[in-house]
């Protein structure tokens, strides 16, 4: 069983808690142990590094050092956390800077040693291999048309994010295909959802979100799939507002990566938090013949035997 220091990010601990919930469910089935580390702080989301770059570097170095003390790699759910932690690793390649930061960290018996690696849930599932996922699917999502949406901070810039990020990513498509659904190809899949200016310039931000939603609507996607909790806020929570600015209605459910994988693995939709979305996900459930269209669903008790058999199979 692989162990990870779990870094869900501030969004998954507040307004997109369903991503956290779904990841824990999926990890349980895949035989991955997620250890909550109470010491972790916010990654700064690029805002703290604007106010005080060195402080941001020190805080992220501390986050990584805490994981290193426990001898674990870090697993994130949020693209921005992923970028910021990787960026910190890159900047601390400068040994003078690393020594200066470590000088402070040693006061708390911590040391950044560049040992832990930072992983995003998408990369973890990719490393496991879509084939393994395919063999574990309990509820094939046949016929579901899924539009993948990566989110910027998982893709760019390559010199910080390393070899996992490419200009033509295919990992999300492979995972969608492994669940039995149909991955769609469209131009906007690598675009920006506009989340980071949502509060500063709402109009522009929502126009950017509607640009991405337009893409998904054009190819008649049943749902958008994103590995990023922040893209989810922009595309799901603000979808109705984006529709106002774009002057056309949208109804595109947006799922977290862990939720789609969880559905395919046969986890109950309620446990994956599908009822928490602002854009209703009932259509999806009807489409895959889900025994559970959210509210009038059977009790979780029915699911338990399934769970156990899968867990045994996984190990």
């Amino acid at each position, binding site marked *: 069983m692989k162990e990870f220091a779990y870094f869900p990010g*501030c*969004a998954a*601990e*507040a*307004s*997109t808690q*369903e991503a956290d919930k779904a990841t824990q469910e999926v990890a349980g089935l895949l035989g991955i142990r997620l250890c909550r580390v*109470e*010491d*972790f*702080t*916010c990654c*700064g*989301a*690029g*805002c*703290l*590094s*604007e*106010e*005080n*770059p*060195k*402080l941001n570097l*020190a*805080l992220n170095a*501390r986050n990584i050092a805490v994981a290193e003390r426990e001898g674990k790699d870090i697993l994130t759910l949020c693209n921005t956390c992923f970028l910021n932690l990787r960026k910190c690793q890159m*900047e601390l390649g400068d040994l003078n800077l690393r020594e200066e930061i470590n000088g*402070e960290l040693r*006061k708390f018996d*911590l040391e950044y040693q560049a040992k832990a690696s930072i992983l995003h849930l998408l990369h973890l599932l990719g490393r496991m291999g879509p084939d393994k996922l395919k063999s574990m699917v309990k509820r094939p999502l046949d016929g579901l048309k899924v539009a993948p949406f990566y989110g*910027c*901070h998982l*893709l*760019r*810039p*390559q010199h910080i994010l390393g070899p996992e990020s490419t*200009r033509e990513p295919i990992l999300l498509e492979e995972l969608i295909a492994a669940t039995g659904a149909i991955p769609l190809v469209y131009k906007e899949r690598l*675009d*920006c959802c*506009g*989340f*980071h*200016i949502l*509060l*500063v*310039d709402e*109009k*522009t*931000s929502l*126009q*950017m979100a509607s*640009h991405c939603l337009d893409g998904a609507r054009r190819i008649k996607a049943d749902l958008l799939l994103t590995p990023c909790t922040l893209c989810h806020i922009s595309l799901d*929570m*603000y979808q*109705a507002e984006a529709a106002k600015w774009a002057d056309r209605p949208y109804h595109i459910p947006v799922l977290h990566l862990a939720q789609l994988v969880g559905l395919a693995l046969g986890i109950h939709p309620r446990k994956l938090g599908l*009822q*928490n*979305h*602002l854009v209703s996900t009932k259509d999806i459930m009807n489409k895959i013949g889900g025994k559970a269209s959210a509210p009038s669903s059977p009790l979780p008790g029915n699911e338990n035997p399934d769970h156990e058999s899968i867990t045994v199979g996984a190990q």
Partner: protein
Amino acid sequence: MILEMKDSLRKEKIPDGDQKRTGPQRISHFYFYKEISALPSGKDILKCIQCGTCSATCPVFRYNPRGNPRKIIAKALLGLKEEVIHSDMIWLCAKCQSCIVKCHKDVSPGEIISAIRTIAIREGARGAGVRHAKAFAFDIYRFGKLNEATLPLVTLRHRIVKMIPLALKMLIRGKLPSPLPKRAKNMQQVRGLFDRFDKEQG
């Protein structure tokens, strides 16, 4: 290339800090580019050849002509410091990193905008963008985590009213963040780092 050469020529002519420059206000910050390139994120500003690739790829510029990365860099290079740091232009960057990938001179326009934001905050600029950035430091100092419930309040102030319908919808779906976020453990370590590195910046 030419600009890079010019830089080496300019280096010799930097006046002492105390020496007051005469002339119109607009050129009084001729060495603004020095301030930017002194920061790690802004170190490549002089490589810019103003080709406009960044603006062509910028998704913000597609919808809002004020968010023009090439223009921001042009103004910074011209030394229009006051105009740049007190405008809302620099706060429109959505950090999509497209320009950083596309720039063939490796200028990283997005990073330069970050550097200009750093200077703007240091010089006491005001506005929604500054409040948004400062809210992060405030929350991390207090809780170690971001407080998603108060972030819109701090950034939008009275305009928060228009978020009430959305907040109600979130409440129904059980997504409304708690006004008291989870606290990180060992906050004295976080505050120790704040004390150390905030002081250094002055």
